[in-house]
């Protein structure tokens, strides 16, 4: 900024014959300029629409929380690169943040009741979310999530949500199932695929065997869940780390049954598959809402905050929906979808029913996390 100013004066000096007055005037101006430079250089950054940013935002998250076109656009406008690092499941992410924290990660994507666990371990920084311009774009239900409160601040910026029904391919899976039992049916050996999430797998099995609090099971409940997983094992073809991969496997019909968010039906159709069916098991089901949290001591804090706000703009949210087909927390995105004539799709995915999100049993960190991990490992060994 100040460089540019000095250059301007210098060329002016060179242009005409130099009078004393000019010289004095110029010197004064230059002197003023030098004195004012620190001011000036700060002023525009406050005034400009785009804050001057630097660094790289290291985002530890799920693929569904970022869209490459948005990241490219953000980079083109601000020069800040968003570096995406994936993780297998909540435990894995917690480990990574616990190990290296803000030195390595700026933002971490976290599931509902895992957020308090991060807070308890002092890993994330509460955000003054209510002062963000995009705050008003939320559905009311997500404006003040009780378990995410930290005084006046919020522990996580909500992003998406969904219940997790059982999905199946009606061509092969017959008899309109209503129970978790369908997953265990010997007819479907190696036809089930599930996400590689040990804790959630044990929790699903807990729900299937009647546990009331799947993320706080007793030893005997875990033992039951473990037995159920043992029964299920021959039916599992593989574990999936990404919903996109699952959509592909459902579309090419190598997988017939899964437990997945409401968007999978749309994604399978987009990948060329047939219309799947889904049901909420009578024994109960699990769901999630998730958010992005600021890692404590984040090296590129400002850039991270800027990016979180940027990606929550209606146009990007709508685009995210049209890729994942699961509801988001942003009302602005829903309104835009309706305006563009995609309201039916959004409604089919329950995007207009945020009230449901608060009524589900949601994913969380069990107090006896280690028992869950061991139960899973022992079945799979």
């Amino acid at each position, binding site marked *: 900024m100040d460089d540019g100013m000095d250059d301007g004066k210098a060329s002016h000096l060179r242009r005409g014959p130099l009078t004393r007055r000019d010289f004095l005037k110029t010197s004064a101006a230059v002197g003023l300029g030098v004195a004012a430079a620190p001011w000036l250089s700060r002023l525009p950054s406050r005034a400009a629409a785009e804050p001057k940013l630097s660094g790289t935002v290291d985002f530890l998250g799920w693929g569904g929380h970022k869209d490459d076109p948005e990241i490219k656009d953000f980079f083109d406008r601000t020069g800040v690169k968003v570096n995406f690092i994936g993780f*297998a499941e909540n*435990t*894995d992410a*917690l*480990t990574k943040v*616990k*190990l290296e924290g803000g030195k390595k990660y700026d933002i971490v994507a976290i599931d509902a009741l895992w957020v308090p666990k991060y807070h308890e*371990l002092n890993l994330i920084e509460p955000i003054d979310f209510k002062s963000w311009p995009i705050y008003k774009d939320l559905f009311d239900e997500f404006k003040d999530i009780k378990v995410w409160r930290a005084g006046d601040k919020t522990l996580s910026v909500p992003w998406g949500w969904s219940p997790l029904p059982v999905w199946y391919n009606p061509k092969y899976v017959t008899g309109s199932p209503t129970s978790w039992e369908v997953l265990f049916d010997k007819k479907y050996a*190696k036809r089930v695929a599930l996400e590689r999430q*040990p804790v959630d797998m044990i929790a699903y099995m807990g729900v299937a065997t009647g546990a009331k609090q799947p993320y706080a099971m007793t030893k005997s409940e875990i033992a039951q869940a473990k037995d159920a997983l043992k029964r299920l*094992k021959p039916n*599992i*073809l*593989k*574990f999936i780390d990404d919903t996109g991969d699952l959509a592909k496997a459902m579309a*090419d019909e*190598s997988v017939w049954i899964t437990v997945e968010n409401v968007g999978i039906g749309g994604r399978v159709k987009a990948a060329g598959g047939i219309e799947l069916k889904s049901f909420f098991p009578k024994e109960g089901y699990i769901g999630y809402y998730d958010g992005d949290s600021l890692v404590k001591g984040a090296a590129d804090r400002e850039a991270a905050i800027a990016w979180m706000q940027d990606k929550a703009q209606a146009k990007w949210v709508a685009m995210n929906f049209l890729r994942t087909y699961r509801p988001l927390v942003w009302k602005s995105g829903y309104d835009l979808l309706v305006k563009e004539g995609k309201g039916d799709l959004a409604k089919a995915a329950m995007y207009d029913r945020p009230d449901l999100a608060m009524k589900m049993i949601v994913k969380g960190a069990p107090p006896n*996390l*280690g028992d869950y*991990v061991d139960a899973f*490992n*022992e079945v*799979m*060994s």
Partner: protein
Amino acid sequence: MQERMTDAPAHQGGTHGAAGRRDIGYLLPITALDLFLFVLPMSIMAVVSFLQVREFELTRQFTIGNYLFFLGHWVYLRVLLKTVIIAVIVTGLCLFLAYPFAYFLTQISPRWQRTTLALVILPFWTSYLLRVYAWMTILGERGLINKGLLLLGVLREPVRFLLYNNAAVIIVSVYLYLPYSALAIYTALERFDRSLVRAAMDLGAAPAQAFRHVVLPLTLPGIMASFIFVFIPMLGEFVTPTLVGGTDGILIVNIVVSQMRALRFGTGAAMTFVIAGLVLVLLLALRRVVNLERVFGA
């Protein structure tokens, strides 16, 4: 190579007696490097394997619980055992396939020898991860083999037992490690005079006998090298079981990684230490049978 190694200083006579000792200085950097980045980490890991981890934090409390956890659970021991068995099978298959192939390589005319050998080496200069991935497109339900057999009318429905099980892990591992075995056996075969085999056969030995009494002993260094380059890496194989093993095909390192991912440094360290110990014992044992430097010189 070993012979030359001991010969070389003798050539220069006594003039370089002190130089022989001075040359030790050349080894200082690598010694320092290995001490700090290999011996020290391994030792620290040994210590950590006896420490307790609580609430994701390493404490200073001594425990043997980490070893009890690993060695006291049959499920985990079983995976270790299974890993060893699969490693043996893969090494065996590699050797079985490598012998005739190595023999074929020795038969190539000298003009093409270099090119042929380069062609053997080239595959393992391609991305290791993508070579494993490529097999998923061969063995999968929509993969090359099923497509081919459907097209030929051999199958009416695609078969599904090719991928996501132990067999797939074995096939892909053999693919990954066969070049090492082939080259090791080839080098051993190249060294000895094949007229010995012919002589044995002329003297009335059956091919099997000739193989057992002449070829086998002479190619023993190649077999040992195969153990080092196939069996040992198999104990640490993670990518192949993860990608093509499904729910049955996991190997011991998968368990180690899941422990590390749950921030259980203690059990992770204990498991790593047991496997690394196994590798070291094996290397020491092989060292007694055959000179290591000679194997690597091969």
